[in-house]
């Protein structure tokens, strides 16, 4: 029997479908078939890719609103403040161009891979995940939305409709560095995003996040504290300050001690390059 493949034009219709029973939400679909050898996806699908209000980037006084189905290509080619540079660099590292053309920002978050390229830069932007049900809306900080590897706080009946970046987090400049054993199409050994705002050479805000070195990407708050109020000096970043925030593992890509060391090195480089 053919299961329903539903592709509504409006969010209200989509929410009604979702309230109606167990349904997979599909957006860019770059992770769904990638996770199975099957030729047919089982179960019912709600495809939200045709809902125009879910795609696009809005920048206003309150900050930045990135629609759930905004693609990585959309993000990479958008005119965005320098604080989003890390996010835009990450957008060019999500798979190849085929993936970037279809993969979406919300899909990257909902898939919740420990190595999701979008997460570290969004963490440095204090991103909020906006979820809707047919009855209402709530927002969660990204670090609360991601609860573990392949796990999120999204509940049945909820759709991620947007990612919000508050205006304060759009200050300064961002950067992103990804480390892998090859140039393209690579799952990170480690990746680092930073955002720094300076006034007269003194760090006002520092946001540093590391991915692929633990079950979920994390902000390095101790390190951030050490940076704020000082002239921007990458040498303040010690291996210990970075390592204590991470819980890397050994796998086919690298061993854990290397990951911690490389992360610290990448943080130093990202900070050195962020204002360049």
């Amino acid at each position, binding site marked *: 029997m*053919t*299961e329903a*493949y539903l*592709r509504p034009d409006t969010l209200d219709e989509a929410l009604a479908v979702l309230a109606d029973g167990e349904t997979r939400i*599909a957006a860019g*679909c*770059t992770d*769904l*078939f*990638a996770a199975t*050898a099957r*030729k*047919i*996806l*089982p179960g019912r*699908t709600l*495809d939200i*890719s045709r809902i125009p209000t879910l795609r696009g980037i809005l920048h206003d006084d309150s900050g930045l609103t990135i629609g759930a189905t905004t693609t990585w*290509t959309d993000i990479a080619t958008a005119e965005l403040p320098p604080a989003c540079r890390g996010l835009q660099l990450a957008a060019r590292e999500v*798979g*190849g*161009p*085929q*993936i970037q*053309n*279809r993969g979406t920002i919300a899909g990257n978050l909902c898939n919740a891979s420990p190595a999701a390229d979008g997460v570290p830069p969004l963490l440095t932007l204090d991103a909020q995940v906006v979820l809707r049900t047919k009855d209402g809306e709530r927002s969660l900080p990204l670090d609360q939305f991601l609860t573990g590897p392949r796990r999120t706080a999204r509940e049945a009946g909820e759709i991620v409709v947007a990612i919000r970046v508050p205006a304060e987090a759009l200050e300064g400049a961002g950067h992103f560095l990804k*480390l892998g*054993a*090859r*140039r*393209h*199409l*690579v*799952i990170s*050994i480690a990746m680092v995003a930073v955002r720094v705002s300076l006034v007269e050479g003194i760090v006002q805000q520092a946001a540093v996040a590391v991915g692929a070195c633990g079950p979920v990407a994390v902000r390095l708050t101790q390190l951030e504290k050490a940076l704020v109020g000082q002239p921007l000096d990458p040498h303040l970043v010690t291996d210990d300050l970075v390592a204590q925030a991470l819980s890397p593992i050994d796998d*086919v*890509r*690298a*061993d854990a001690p*290397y990951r911690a*060391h*490389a992360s610290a*090195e*990448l943080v130093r480089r990202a900070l050195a390059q962020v204002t360049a």
Partner: protein
Amino acid sequence: MTLSFTIRGERQEVETDPHRRLSEVLRDDLGLKSVKVGCDAGDCGACTVLIDGRQACACLVPAGQADGASIETLETWSGGAADRLRDAFLAEGAAQCGICTPGMMMAAAELLSASPDPTEDEVRTALSGVLCRCTGYASIVAAVLSASRPRPAETMPAPGQSVGAPVRRLDGRPKVDGTEMFGADVGPRDALVVRAVRSPHFHAAFTLGDTAAWAVEHPGVTVLTAADVPGVNRFGVIPHLADQPALADGIVRHLGEAVALVVGEASLVEALVLSTFPVTWEAHPYSLTEAEGAKDGAQLLHEGRPGNLLIEGRVSTGDAETALAASAHVADGTFRTSYVEHAYIEPEAGIAWLEGDTLIIAACTQAPVMDRDETAKVLGLPPDRVRIIPTATGGGFGAKLDLSVQPLIGLAALKTGKPCRMVWGRGESMLASTKRHPGTMTARIGADAEGRITAMRFDGAFNTGAYASWGPTVASRVPVHASGPYRTPNYRATARAIHTNGPTSGAFRGFGVPQAAIAQEVLYDDLALALGMDRLAFRRANAFVDGDRTTCGQTLPSVGLADCLDALAPHWEVALEAAEAHNRGGGVTRRGVGVASCWYGCGNTSLPNPSTVRIGITSAGRLCLHQGATDIGQGSNTVIAQIAADALGVPLDAIEIVGPDTALTPDCGKTSASRQTFVTGRAAQAAGEALRALILRQTNLPETASIRLSAGRLSVEDGGTRQDIDLAALTSDSHGYVLAAEETYDPPTTALDADGQGAPYAVYGFGAQLAEVEVDMALGTTRVLHIAAAHDLGRAINPTLARGQVEGGIAQGLGLALMEEFVPGRTENLHDYLIPTIGDMPRITPILIEKPDPEGPFGARGLGEHVLIPTAPAILNAIRHASGARITHVPALPHRVLAAIGKARHGT
């Protein structure tokens, strides 16, 4: 659900399940077979199509999401830009096997529509989501970059001038217009589908449960097991060591070994959940490394192979130990290499059906006659009742020498009487296909105070995995080649192939020689450093020259290695200066330069491996070349035709190629061991010359005469004299030819004695490569900046194709050096197992050295495997020159390089 797509500007409707992969719908329902399926995971990009003008992996898109969209595939893409890009791909040699070509061209199509005259960076970025395993990407980048420029039409070389001409591959057009048919593309849509039930254990005994009851629960599905195999359920490439069951019988020896087949209509079989298949497993202890397999008390895999030792090869001359003890300098080390996956973009696939009482198998392969004979044996048929028609093969590199789907689909077709197809998924391919042997190699090399090599000891243990496959070939080739192409008066080398429960190690471009070259060439750098000699000069001083004797005692009549090293010398000086200048600037990166050489014997080691070529002229005036050498992208369809054309004295475009097909083409052996240009080339040369002699005899004209074919007529002309042969008046032979010649060539070799003394090969090829790298001293990452590759190939029959071999071999050598590590049970996909992308490849300077070989056709030597041998050691030596890190375990992943840098700094 009815889905509609706009294709070629027209709306097309398809009634199908919207949850299917778009790639499947395009291929099966709309017949757009240019959409290739390489991984079903968005890792390889072979299925790249344009959806509303943007490149996308069709395997990832549910068909329902593309409803209403405009879709462009390689066969539907038309217009000026399409024509120019197709032409550019052919002219640059950008399509080798052709399996990635549709994806590459569609990715380029997106770019060219926005940016008709792109920069190189734009090209590399646009194509970065498509993997190629053949070309090394250089020719692809060149093709896209030049696609906007006018290009003159190709002119065919004059008669007698085909050899040496950079003609476009003769079988190229279907590769660039999307009509090439690979293993998964042939046969009727309604063929039954075969799937295998595979072992979840590395080593286990098993009993099948009530398979009949399971079949009853799944009406329409036929179950086949070892009990159904009518012949000898043991195949292998070396008859007396054949040990591999088509379907396991009571015991599985590696992860993913097939224990049963399920056969039925596609919709039924594809939906089956095979984990419900009734099998009871009793897991056994297992080993996965050569050290574990050889350990006392290790679980044995095969009766009669104590210590899990499959075979040991040895070459010994002089007194290595005494000479080492007396040497001024001795370098020693232990080196480890990993399992390496062939990672051709086309997983194994094929279809079998019966015509009368003949079983026909159309599948991707490198060895049609061996497929026929081994499949016939397994199925209990005489060989002449099995016909193998190779499909286009989307990369092979050695693994498609072994049987894959052939006995399984053959069995299914015999039992059901219907056409049966099997298409392996990426995971299945990586589980069930062979790999490059991992090796643990210990070596010592000595030199005298003047820098002359005195002696070498080499002992290699190679993980040959669960079954014999080509393990014996590795064990015999490695001791012959482990000295490298250098004079080594005292020598003792052994290589052992040890069974483990890892995947079967088989043939992979170089048969163990690339692994051994790593040990030898890193130790050569140790010696040069100890001697204070320039590393290139040290190699030049010890390089084989004409008349030198190998460690097997064979005299080499013609060696172009010194020419290769001399050709690298100017690059070497420039590179050393550039590295030094960079390093003076400080910073976190260090540059370095490395060099390594190769040699490689072409053809089987001391064993017969004849090729037979037939050329015939029909009464209508068609000239047919029966070319049985399978072209897996390397170019034998073109090269063999070029040789035949010049031997016969006709223009290249007069030749029509027949085959390969075991019913139509005489045996040209396997596409392996870099033997086709040499061995089949010699057969083609002989056949062409024989046919020419026959024609000249019939016309009584001298050797200087020219031959011209027209409809029904053959004209032979010399000076003012012209003789016409009325072909229609002649009688056809049993093959349908009025004039024909068939010739066989088998390389003259001798058996090796107990010390490996003899003449194992009739022709050798030589080469040397220089690598320039940049090492990040804080992260341990390596970027290869440039490789200059000088290869003595005797005669470049087709320089474009030869350069393609060089660039592609370097890509695989770079992968071996820096990123490729297959971990059984962990990396059976193309995102955990990494091969080089377009962004990983350096600038390559191919240098073709043509020092004729007295035995090769028109002086040609083999090239295909030679080209990857020096790459990895050259890169490792460059890493060390840059950073001090002496790498002894490949791949040189960043954490290993960083650890080695630390070790070099602290001297621990």
